[in-house]
């Protein structure tokens, strides 16, 4: 298990390095002269020269990349060009919104999706299964931001149970801050839960046909004992893979849903940076997002190895 984790950590490090290099290449080298790009066509030569010095553009691209990378390890991502604030500080503020949003949605969708999937599989072909799967079909098709708009209409405008948008920092009023995240989390979680329920059901229905379930029945277990003791754990394996991938979609979802609720998350930071052509913020924010996705996939791999002894021994999940 430890050897497996070490190998994976090495893989994660390489992937992160390559990701950083690509992001750096796209947003620092590809625009030609980043200073000219950020200031626009009308900027004076003096202003461009000043920004060039500030950005350290007189150094080679190779050096700049490593300066950025070392800064990253020290938590220093430079100063935002448009907001004149350290990028690290800007991002730390925004992550206080985005991170609870993404993790909350992941937790809620798992808590709703998996049990529904298991119960549906156990009652395959019966009314409850059919209803659950019709509901899941609808859930998968609903754009989360549109669902968010409907939630605002119902729970914030019509019934006024939750705030329609905006965010109070955690330090000011933690309860209110949490309340402002309830609707966004639900909007993100329910469509995800629909996907998880379907995957869980399909996987469990498949596993229920497996020979070892028949062995368990022949041993004397009832069908539902066999499902709970032998089926669910095996059926979870493909679900874990999907959950890792879903996290990438959840990150995308938080960026979009922030717009519905006017939440000051990472997404809105990125959009204001894009319109201000603030490459310094954009590249670091994107790297943080990508790093989050890579990290979650790593956790999924570890969880996989934890559940499945064949992977612990073999040293890798066979792809496909």
């Amino acid at each position, binding site marked *: 298990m430890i050897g497996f984790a070490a190998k994976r950590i090495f893989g994660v490090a390489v992937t992160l390095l390559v990701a950083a290099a690509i992001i750096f290449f796209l947003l620092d080298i590809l625009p030609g002269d980043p200073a000219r790009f950020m200031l626009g066509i009308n900027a004076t030569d003096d202003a461009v020269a000043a920004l060039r010095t500030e950005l350290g553009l007189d150094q080679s691209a190779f050096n700049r990349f490593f300066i950025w990378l070392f800064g990253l390890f020290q938590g220093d991502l430079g100063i935002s060009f448009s907001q004149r604030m350290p990028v690290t500080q800007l991002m730390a503020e925004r992550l206080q919104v985005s991170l609870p949003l993404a993790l909350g949605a992941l937790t809620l969708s798992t808590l709703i999706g998996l049990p529904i999937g298991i119960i549906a599989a156990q009652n395959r072909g019966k009314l409850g299964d059919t209803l659950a799967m019709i509901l899941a079909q609808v859930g998968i098709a609903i*754009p989360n931001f549109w669902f968010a708009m409907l939630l605002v209409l119902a729970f914030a405008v019509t019934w006024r149970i939750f705030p329609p948008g905006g965010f109070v920092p955690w330090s000011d009023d933690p309860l209110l801050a949490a309340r402002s995240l309830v609707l966004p989390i639900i909007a993100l979680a329910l469509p995800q839960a629909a996907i998880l329920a379907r995957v869980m059901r399909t996987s469990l229905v498949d596993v229920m046909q497996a020979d070892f379930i028949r062995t368990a029945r022949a041993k004397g277990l009832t069908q539902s004992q066999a499902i709970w003791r032998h089926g669910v754990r095996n059926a979870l394996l493909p679900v874990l893979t999907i959950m890792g991938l879903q996290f*990438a979609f959840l990150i995308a979802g938080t960026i979009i849903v922030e717009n519905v609720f006017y939440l000051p998350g990472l997404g809105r930071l990125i959009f204001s940076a*894009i319109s201000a052509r603030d490459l310094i913020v*954009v590249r670091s924010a994107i790297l943080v997002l990508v790093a989050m996705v890579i990290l979650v996939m790593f956790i999924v791999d570890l969880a996989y190895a934890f559940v499945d002894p064949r992977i612990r021994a073999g040293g890798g999940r066979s792809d496909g």
Partner: protein
Amino acid sequence: MAEQSTFARALSHPSFRVGLLGSFIFILLALISVVWTPYATDIVDIPNRFGSFSASNWLGTDYLGRDQFSLLMVGIASSLKVALLAVAIGALVGVPLGLMAAAQRGWLEAIILRFNDFIFAFPAIISAIIITTLFGPSAINAMVAIGIFNIPVFARVARGGALSLWTLEYVDAAKLSGLTSAQISLRHILPNVASLLIVQATIQLSLGVLAEAGLSYIGLGTQPPDTSLGLMLKEAQSFFFGFPMQAIIPGLAIVLFVISFNLLGDGLRDTLDPKLTRVSTL
């Protein structure tokens, strides 16, 4: 097994029938919109803005007084176009990669797999942000961003299907007949993974419609004066509390559109994948 009988079997599958009908209606609306819409979608008619359902404007009018139904038709067409081209990008690059990985194994496969995992770390929205930062927002950006994410999806499906086929004896027979691995991939592997790829394409198509809506909604996709289902939602948001129908109608269109494709895909998968349809094998 003749294609005809597969299609006939699929037709007896209720969700396939519903999905086929729904997809057909949406595709038809999109095709008609290219040559005709009830009203032109580029004429502003402020006095008639926010009109409700009526005989002349079936779904009412928007904040500029344009006919909602006409906008919806055009929006469906542009969403479909983005999703279709994104699937094409994904399939055209991903399928050859997946087939190559399965045919060659070894270092080429390792590189392709690494590349796949790597792309999975870049959801469409992140690619779209990078592309937009560099080139400004447009529908093409959305298409490319979604297409890039489709590449590893198709590569994975193609490779997974192909790997099990490469162990079969008819592939050995083809090798004995002197066929190269490229010839074998085209003659024996691709036709046998085609059904898997078609099912995946319908899934990616519906995901593409959803992704396009999300990107256009946050301003990274289709730009005015063009329209798409996501852009309609973006424009409706400012007036949402006063005129919720402005957002509900395009949203419902997305939901029905995506459900149709998903049902189509489910029906196809159930018919094409004997593993899931078997009742009890002994």
